[in-house]
């Protein structure tokens, strides 16, 4: 298998697994939510990740949906990270490895921007 095909295969697999998991969590969470409408509330990004994970494991609809959103947002991060590792270790292309690292650094930087009140 050519190196570039290997790169494509790795990135495609990363995308498939993470987006599939995210959609599954969101869909199941939504169905559970619709079957328990009394739980209506509008939680947003202020809930700590540990609580979201714990709630999702207990099949709490809101937490499952939130986890689905978090995984979906992180999918592009994984996409870039996958490209970084593939460039560096499969294709041995340092220049583009650093480009991917740069993009990843920008994405991570965004996570540290203090809460903006829109």
């Amino acid at each position: 298998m050519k190196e570039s095909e290997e790169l494509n295969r790795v990135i495609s697999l990363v995308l498939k697994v993470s987006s599939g998991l995210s959609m599954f969590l969101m869909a199941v969470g939504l169905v559970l939510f619709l079957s328990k409408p009394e739980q209506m509330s509008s939680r947003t990004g202020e809930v700590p990740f540990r609580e979201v994970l714990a709630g999702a494991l207990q099949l709490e609809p809101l937490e499952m949906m939130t986890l689905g959103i978090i995984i979906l947002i992180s999918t592009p991060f994984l996409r870039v990270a996958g490209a970084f590792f593939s460039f560096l270790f499969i294709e041995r292309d340092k220049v583009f490895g650093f480009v991917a690292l740069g993009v990843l650094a920008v994405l991570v930087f965004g996570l540290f921007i203090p809460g903006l009140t829109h």
Partner: protein
Amino acid sequence: MTTLLLLAVGLAAGVFGALLGLGGGFLVIPVLTILFHMPIHSAIGISLIAVIATSTSAAVVYVREGRVDIRLGMLLELGTTVGAIVGAIIAAFVSSRVLYLLFSLLLLYNAYAMYRKDEPARGQIAAAGGPEPAAGGVKPVLKGVDTPEYEVKNLPLGLAFSGIAGILSGLLGIGGGLIKIPVMYTLMGVPLKTAVATSNFMIGVTAAASASIYYLSGNVSPVETVPVALGVFVGANMGLRFNKAFSVRTLKRLFIIVFLYVALQMIIKGIGS
């Protein structure tokens, strides 16, 4: 009930977005703000999540088939992600009125672009997601990312435009393909199909840069976001299936009128807010 309506909104946005060659944002944001009276910042946050969903599903197919120029995409992402963060920060400091008016301008530009050109939009339909080959059975332009059959031109200018596309994405919750595809195609000499596939690969990464900021700022409520995101995801895939049976030209003319009307509504809402 609201949840089911939001699901329907997402579905419709996904189907029509795929048929017209647009991301869902152009339809999701006006509907959420005008019909559901949602704050525009929340609508933008929700739209960005929907953009990631559609981009990811399309990218799975295009990356596997080698249609994405990952190297070019990664380089331009340096511009789009920085732009997206800047856009999300700007959005925090500008009023809803400004966002409504900017979005209206973008809708007007979009209607104009749809009126002028058929070709890129048709390409975008193919890139909107789904397992089928590109519309018309077009074969991948690139067999592998390391054997490009073209030479990329004007890279610094392309990067600058990518930054602008990123700012618009972070500020207004759109994918930015409207800018990136013509820039890659006409300015950088990238074949259209590759430009479309690469843009779609990039859109998700760009949207993630600003979506995380909107999420952490509390603008992404799961109850409202999930139905829209799921709807857009399913709708975009359905739109591809309908593609062959539909007269896209007629639909486009219809949506040019819809966009003009929606732009007017958003201007009125912007002035009134």
